[in-house]
């Protein structure tokens, strides 16, 4: 009995070797088992600034534009610190999501946790329950996030932000009413799409969305990120076929 099973398996494997590639086998299994968005990902199209579709201008309110222009001038003059860089404070959303460093997404229990190499920031997304009420909502750089799955797409709803972070690496401001909806979808086994929709009546006249894509990088481990120190490859494994992408900071 054991022998006949072994022979059947050998026949199957021999035939399969010609019919499917290894990648196809993995992809087929992944599609069936609903692999979600887990894995280590690295942004493919990093940009310092938020770029809505067709490179449209951000829909600033007059006050929002004024604050952005003040930020630009003060950052350039060194009169205002970018605390995400100078103190390595969490860079908020969507800036952290669009950073030029890898991130690891782990689906576990009723949570999805996004672990970002930049400023060793982790972003916890609860898949059950709702946001706390206004009196219980503790403002945080990464906000309060709840998520749900919509046909294989992870939709994350984030509110409750501190107002002293920027939305991007150039210094786009926001207020405490910021509401970010982040949609993550696996385009294929090896590519992830993330669309962040930003809504902030203190700064913008209407909501807008920014899209980036990410490459699946199972060959990469997140590096230790120590504030103010060189970002180093500790084991040498990161350098194999990988160009380190340094932040434009």
């Amino acid at each position: 009995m054991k022998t006949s099973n072994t022979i059947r398996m050998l026949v199957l494997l021999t035939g399969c070797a010609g019919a499917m590639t290894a990648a196809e086998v993995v992809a087929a299994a992944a599609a069936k088992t609903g692999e979600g968005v887990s894995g280590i990902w690295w942004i493919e199209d990093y940009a310092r600034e938020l770029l809505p579709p067709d490179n449209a201008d951000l829909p600033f309110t007059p006050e929002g534009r004024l604050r952005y222009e003040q930020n630009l001038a003060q950052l350039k003059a060194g009169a205002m610190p970018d605390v995400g860089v100078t103190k390595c404070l969490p860079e908020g959303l969507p800036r952290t999501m669009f950073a030029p460093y890898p991130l690891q997404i782990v689906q576990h229990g009723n949570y999805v946790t996004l672990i970002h190499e930049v400023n060793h920031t982790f972003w916890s997304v609860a898949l059950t329950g709702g946001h706390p009420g206004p009196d219980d909502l503790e403002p945080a750089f990464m906000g309060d996030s709840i998520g749900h799955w919509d046909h294989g797409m992870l939709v994350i709803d984030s509110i409750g932000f501190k107002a002293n972070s920027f939305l991007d690496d150039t210094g786009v401001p926001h207020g405490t009413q910021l509401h970010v909806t982040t949609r993550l979808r696996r385009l294929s086994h090896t590519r992830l799409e993330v669309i962040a929709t930003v809504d902030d009546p203190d700064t913008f006249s209407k909501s807008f969305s920014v899209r980036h894509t990410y490459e699946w990088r199972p060959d990469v481990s997140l590096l230790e990120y120590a504030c103010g120190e060189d970002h180093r490859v500790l084991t040498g494994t990161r350098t194999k076929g990988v160009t380190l992408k340094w932040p434009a900071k």
Partner: protein
Amino acid sequence: MAGKVTARTGWRQLCRGSAIAWLSLSTVAVAHPDFSGVWEHSRIPGEGEYIDGKDTRDLSFMMPWVEAEVRRREEASLAGNPIPNAGVLCLPEGMPNIMTSGHDLQIIQTEKEVLILAESDHQILPVYMNVNHPGNLLPSWYGHSIGRWNGDTLVIDTVGLNARSLIDSTGTPHSEALHVVVRMRLENGGKRIEAVFTLEDPLALRRPWVYTRHFEKGEGGAVSEYACAENNEHYQAK
């Protein structure tokens, strides 16, 4: 052609199904204790962030230069001018202090990794399961941690630490030769972790330093955001 089943497409479908079944079976996790969740320090007397027993303790297990540094920090503290430790300065706490500095921990457990997330300054300690340490490791704040299961005990082994981190909140220094082993097991029906730390450092310790910490299962599924540099402006201004 769509939908037409030929010998080749039929064979591909059979292969696809077989591959899925095989991969599904192969990814069924062996039942290990589940450390997932938020954990708070038990606050058991003698298990604090600092070395206890100020006047009576025996620090002869430390090399003289290590004991001298501990005494120096203690005297400064008693004189009302404490020397800041890593947690106060928002520096990486390193291993094992990331686990013992008094803040909550969150553990995420997968087959390949056990991720220890520290609420304290959102620090992350990845533990890679069932692999070896790389041979060409450069010293770093958190070093390189590997894990394996010994029955119901999770054994975490850390090497490759730099000499800048401090062993504990007292400020005990160590060398790059520090080797940390943590043996963790669940107690009290899974509501408590017993973690036995064994520290060996031939340049800083005369013999292995063994101590135990306990953690109680906390409320909620994730630790809160605590950004250190935001909250200690007064220290930075000094």
